């Protein structure tokens, strides 16, 4: 350790550091310059199109923008609630489906077949059709007697049905990508099939498919906007209402911005999280 404290970088190393610093500086400047140039070209091109002033007024009207924020944001809270419920129910149902599809042996044939049929059906059906079927079909089952089921519950059911099918396929692919020797090692220690899954295979699988799962999550964040077809006043519906009154499309831009703002942290978080897991489990390298 005393060697470490006494050590001073050699002149060669100092030279190398200076070269790296100046190169780093230069790439930042080039990057900045090219980005500004690109932005300027796009801006000038768009602004000089013949219809720009009309488009600007219809889609980017500052006054309507500010005015529509409260109502659209209030509707967005409904989207967030549906998203919150759906994340939980999709995680549970998706995991269950993935697990059912890994079961072996003839006893489990009906369960496996059911899970396979389910994923085939709901990955194939457009979400908007599932929304209509659930949103208007389930209330119809009650006849005239039942109480009204809130649109957020119906929306959650429809989104769960569709997204759990996707998520279960991602999870299953993850489970199957873990080397079979891991399963053998787990079983050789006396763990049951379910324990091997829970303790050994699924944690490794989830790490591998985190980017794919987060991709589905981002996709789900937007698709909760589709619950507006059920008549609930969510962000999209609120925007629609304001548009109908003001004859201006700016509220849609507001709603769109809210969805983007919601997605960006998720995307950044995923990148950070996967990088951290990799760093912890593997000795790192710079390339």
């Amino acid at each position, binding site marked *: 350790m005393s060697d470490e404290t006494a050590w001073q970088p050699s002149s060669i190393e100092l030279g190398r550091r200076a070269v790296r610093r100046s190169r780093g500086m230069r790439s930042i400047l080039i990057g900045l310059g090219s980005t500004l140039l690109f932005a300027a070209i796009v801006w000038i091109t768009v602004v000089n199109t013949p219809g720009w002033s009309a488009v600007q007024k219809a889609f980017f009207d500052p006054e309507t923008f500010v005015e529509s924020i409260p109502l659209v944001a209030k509707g967005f809270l409904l989207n967030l609630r549906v998203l919150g419920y759906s994340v939980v129910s999709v995680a549970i149902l998706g995991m269950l489906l993935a697990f059912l599809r890994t079961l072996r042996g003839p006893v489990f044939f009906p369960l496996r077949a059911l899970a396979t049929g389910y994923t085939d059906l709901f990955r194939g059906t457009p979400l908007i059709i599932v929304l209509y079927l659930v949103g208007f079909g389930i209330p119809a089952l009650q006849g005239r007697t039942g109480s009204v089921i809130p649109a957020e519950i119906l929306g959650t059911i429809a989104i769960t049905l569709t997204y759990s099918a996707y998520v279960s396929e991602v999870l299953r692919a993850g489970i199957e990508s873990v080397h079979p020797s891991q399963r*053998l090692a787990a079983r*050789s*220690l*006396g*763990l049951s099939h379910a*324990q091997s899954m829970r303790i050994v295979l699924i*944690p*490794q699988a989830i790490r591998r498919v985190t980017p794919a799962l987060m991709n589905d999550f981002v996709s789900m964040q937007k698709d909760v906007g589709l619950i507006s077809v059920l008549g609930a006043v969510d962000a999209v519906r609120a925007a629609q209402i304001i548009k109908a009154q003001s004859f201006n499309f700016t509220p849609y831009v507001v709603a769109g911005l809210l969805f983007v703002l919601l997605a960006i942290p998720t995307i950044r978080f995923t990148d950070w999280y996967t990088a951290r897991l990799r760093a912890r489990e593997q000795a790192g390298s710079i390339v």
Partner: protein
Amino acid sequence: MSEVLRLEGIRKSYGVTPVLRGIDLTVNRHEVIAVIGASGSGKSTLLRTINLLETIDDGQIWLADAAGTLEDISDPRAKADAIRARIGFVFQHLNLFPHLSVLDNVTISTRHVQRIRRQVAEARGLELLDRVGLADKAREFPDRLSGGQQQRVAIARAIATDPELLLLDEITSALDPQLVGEVLDLVRQLKSEGTTIVMATHEMAFARDVADHVVFLDNGVVGEQGPPTEIFTAPRTSRAREFLGRFLA
């Protein structure tokens, strides 16, 4: 000497390829058995059938319980998971669980199969790691360890439940030559502590030094067996002489 394991007429084929064609073997307590033979002679398959990782086509496998009574573990009604926890198994390829720390790897069977409380299991896990000389690596993840260290953790994991029998499947074959020694030293130490071991191995010098009994597998049958002094100096069969040719010379 009490019997720990008895194999009677074990047969196993993969499709139409016969791998084991009637194996009989008896293992007594505190004994170290070395299974030798060419690649493809059925050594790994034999160990896997004992640990119930493969089903057999015929024959019987008897394993002693805590009281020393032999139980037929090849009976499909036997509780396979509980039996596997009574047999330690170390694989040729390093297959620790990469997402779990060294200590979690070592305590997985005591915590989840034997259902021992976490603190107790971890205290015992640390003792085990100390025995294999890796107590300071308890919180590390397997990928940060050398191959030899990983294999020593795998051995610690396999003996965590105090199994009646330890199966070692060519545990040094995937290691760099300079790492083989530390793993073999650990096996020597286990033998001196009285562990009952069946090991498939290509390390002939090691088998000669450590094994009490050597089994030469040839094409799915026991070609020859006996004490190492006999097998390694004066094999009776021509097949064994041929296989051991380079080593004997």
